[in-house]
């Protein structure tokens, strides 16, 4: 039963990608709706089907293995061809290295007899995220891309939808694979999709950024393939569960695995755009917003941290784990600091994504059951909230024509529903009782025994509060004129509402999610369960308790009190204080200046670019992160 769902999960998105190419543009809307419904149905049926390993052996295996090899060759050829065409020498060089490694693997590494798909709770969680959030984003795209292409005089939607659906197929395969070789193939396919989608505009900036993404991801891919080769030749391991079993045998085995596992983790870091690989994610923001929402916040970058979490048995409670934790938390604090100085909304979200992924890696690196549980919960909550925020930013850009936070001032008057949903997204990243803060709390409590990590997390958390509340206040301030008409399309608002309701739903039912997915998965990875007890509504561990139900109740109470007392004191609307110089003839928003004419007052937020600006912090970040990676590679010397 699971086998069928696994096959369907890979084949159905491929089918849809072909349908998107074959059918005319007017039918895309209906295709997207069908895709959403089928995606939800498939992922839910996978979850309900239970966990298990799906082996692929015998003649089936031979056929699929050949397909995999052919696809690998095609991928490498595509990379070589496209980098030669655009004369991008670094990518060409990396492509040649990849080809050499592939040839070496084909020649020297002994082939396995079977492959397998491992459907454990983490895979189920990722499938839910990829298929529900992913198909919702494709639905959003049908309402978004027409206007996007109109502005830029493009007509490439066929390739867009083909690649997005193909990407979903690759992503599904990635999170379900257990065999390292197949994992690597799906990994490279997602890199390829990312390249095609980033350079969607076909202008110079898009192509350059596409190549930067391709190159940096190839660096990660090269590290990964070296790690896979080492594992296969020296230890005869060809699957993720194999790594876990081998690591569990004895301490010597665990120490021996440190280098190849570190190389695999570097592949994960590159895919998740951690420092020093983060520039590709920032460059990827030139892509259309659905691409940013799908690839660069909810799914593809989650693949990197997915791999790092899956490898937890190999480095938990070792010095490599501590090195990874310090590295992740350093990225968290540096990227939160960098996000403070940004005015472009998508760059803020990009830095925030990198920071939260760093937090996930840090929690995974700490290695205690509580910490690993925190990292998995954060994967889920962050994917939903960040996807929602990216979609809202795209819609805001269509409404006011700008991505600058300062131009979003007064959005609540122009597009109330959109602003409320965006505000919900931002509040969910920042404040209790929502999931992201709950997992941040769990991470902090779990990290308390490691002083360097906890100090970084504390600083990063304070910085996060700043840049989100700045943005939140700006969109909720009410000083703007209403000359933009919000486009109210169902394809736009349905995905936004689905994501917003998922945020609230997952935050309320966090205990069920924990019991069903997270607890068992931590047991599989580490062998013992975090001590989460407590009545439903209070998240109690051995060192603390979070009463999230009380906070929900009080929030609802505040809303009720406001609605009840709203008319108790009849409000009288006045204009705001501008020393009496408001222009009373028109809208009272302008003030009379010294020359007796009227002008608008504008106040911008504080960005502190001379302290937290990119030019100041990026070099420092590169230096420290490279040092930390070298330390991790050396097995976490002495940490």
């Amino acid at each position, binding site marked *: 039963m699971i086998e069928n769902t696994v096959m369907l999960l890979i084949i159905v998105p491929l089918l849809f990608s072909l349908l998107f190419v074959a059918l005319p543009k007017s039918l895309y809307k209906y295709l997207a709706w069908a895709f959403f419904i089928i995606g939800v149905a498939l992922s839910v049926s996978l979850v309900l089907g239970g966990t298990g390993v799906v082996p692929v052996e015998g003649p089936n295996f031979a056929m699929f293995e050949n397909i995999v090899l052919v696809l690998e060759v095609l991928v490498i050829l595509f990379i070589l061809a496209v980098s030669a065409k655009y004369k991008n020498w670094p990518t060409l060089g990396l492509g040649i290295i990849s080809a050499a490694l592939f040839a070496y693997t084909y020649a020297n590494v002994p082939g396995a007899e079977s492959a397998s798909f491992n459907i454990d709770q983490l895979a189920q969680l990722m499938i839910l995220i990829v298929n529900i959030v992913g198909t919702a984003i494709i639905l959003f795209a049908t309402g978004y891309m027409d206007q996007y292409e109109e502005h830029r005089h493009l007509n490439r939607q066929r390739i867009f939808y083909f690649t997005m659906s193909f990407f979903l197929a690759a992503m599904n395969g990635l999170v379900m694979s257990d065999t390292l070789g197949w994992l690597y193939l799906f990994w490279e396919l997602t890199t390829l999709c990312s390249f095609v989608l980033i350079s969607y505009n076909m202008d110079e900036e898009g192509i350059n950024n596409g190549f930067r993404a391709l190159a940096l991801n190839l660096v990660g891919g090269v590290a990964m393939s070296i790690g896979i080769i080492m594992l296969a030749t020296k230890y005869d391991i060809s699957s993720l569960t194999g790594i876990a079993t081998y690591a569990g045998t004895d301490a010597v085995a665990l120490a021996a695995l440190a280098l190849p596992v570190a190389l695999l983790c570097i592949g994960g870091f590159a895919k998740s755009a951690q420092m020093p690989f983060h520039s590709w994610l920032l460059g990827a923001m030139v892509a259309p917003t659905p691409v940013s929402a799908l690839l660069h916040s909810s799914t593809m970058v989650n693949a990197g941290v997915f791999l790092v979490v899956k490898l937890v048995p190999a480095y938990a409670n070792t010095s490599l784990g501590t090195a990874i934790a310090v590295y992740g938390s350093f990225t968290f604090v540096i990227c939160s600091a960098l996000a403070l100085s940004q005015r472009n909304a998508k760059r803020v979200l990009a830095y925030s994504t990198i920071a939260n992924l760093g937090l996930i890696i840090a929690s995974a690196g700490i290695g205690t059951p509580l910490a690993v549980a925190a990292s998995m919960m954060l994967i889920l909550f962050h994917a939903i909230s960040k996807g929602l925020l990216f979609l809202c930013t795209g819609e805001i850009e269509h409404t006011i024509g700008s991505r600058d936070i300062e131009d979003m*001032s007064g959005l609540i008057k122009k597009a109330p529903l959109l602003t409320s949903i965006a505000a919900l997204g931002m509040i969910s990243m920042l404040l209790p009782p929502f999931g992201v803060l709950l997992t941040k709390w769990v991470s902090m409590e779990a990290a*308390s025994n490691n002083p360097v990590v906890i100090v970084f997390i504390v600083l990063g958390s304070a910085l996060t*509060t*700043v840049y989100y509340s700045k943005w*939140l206040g700006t969109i909720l301030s009410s000083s703007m004129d209403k000359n933009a008409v919000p486009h109210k399309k169902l394809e736009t608002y349905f995905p936004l509402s689905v994501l917003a309701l998922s945020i609230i739903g997952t935050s309320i039912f966090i205990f069920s999610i924990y019991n069903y997915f997270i607890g068992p998965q931590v047991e599989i990875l580490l062998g013992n369960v975090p001590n989460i007890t407590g009545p439903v509504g209070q998240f109690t561990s051995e060192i603390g308790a979070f009463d999230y139900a009380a906070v929900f109740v009080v929030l609802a109470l505040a*809303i009720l009190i406001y609605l009840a007392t709203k008319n108790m004191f009849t409000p009288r609307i006045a204009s705001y204080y501008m020393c009496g110089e408001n222009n009373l003839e028109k809208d009272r928003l302008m003030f009379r200046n010294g020359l007796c004419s009227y002008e608008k007052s504008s*106040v911008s937020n*504080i960005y502190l670019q001379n302290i937290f600006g990119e030019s100041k912090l990026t070099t420092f970040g590169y230096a420290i992160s490279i040092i930390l990676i070298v330390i991790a590679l050396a097995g976490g010397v002495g940490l």
Partner: protein
Amino acid sequence: MNDILTIILVLIGAPILGCLASGIDRKLTARLQGRVGPPLLQPYYDVRKLFSKDNMVVNPSQNFYVIVYLVFIVLSLLMLVFKQDFLMIIFVYTVASVALVVGGMSTGSPYARVGSSREIMAILSYEPVLILYALAIYLLTGTFKLSALLDKSSPLLIYTPLIFIAMIVVLNIKLKKSPFDYSTSHHGHQELVKGMTTEYGGPGFATIEIAHFYEYVFLTGLIFLFWASTPVIGVLIGIIAYLLVIVIDNITARVYWQWMLKLSWTVLLVMSIVNIAFLYVSGAQLA
């Protein structure tokens, strides 16, 4: 039953205590300046007057944010009284602070927006110190839950003197008193007109004042935790800290927020980290 009585006691008693604390603040300030000063219950008269004024608003929904501010400060105070997880209390308190900041920005007034931007900088300054305080409690008692802290027999202050000094400065920042009162000055009465709260009048401003009363009790409670083993001394330390804050208020001038950010992220943070490092290395535990 006991719990409900405690809740009612806190809900009614805390604003009374806060009102008296605010009144003592104004009286003491007046005496330090050689004046007679208002009667002790003056803050109560202020709130009563504000409720009888018109509900003047700029943005029809601006009072929502101050209601959230009030409700969440009450919640964090109740959680403190019921000895919940300290880190959770800090995060719930952050909701209240962010709600007030967003409320200020929601009016759209230029003064309010500048005031709110500065208050965000204040949040950036004090939040690391607060969380490191929670971490110190964890390192000393092995848990974040305050119920464990209040069972111990030796005081927290002996092991965390540097964090105590940092918390006194944080108390200054949170109460918006000189030298850190540039987002809205309650005590000096005018900074950027009234900063964040410029556009709040009538019942909205009364709600802010009542929330301030609860906040005085909450913040003094945070200082009380430093000597929670003997409640009398704890309360005494809390009162002395509050009086110290009033005196500092009167003898210093308002400074730039950049100075506050520098002070907090160099001096206060380094002091707290040194203290934490000492706790971590020595592995001390509270008896």
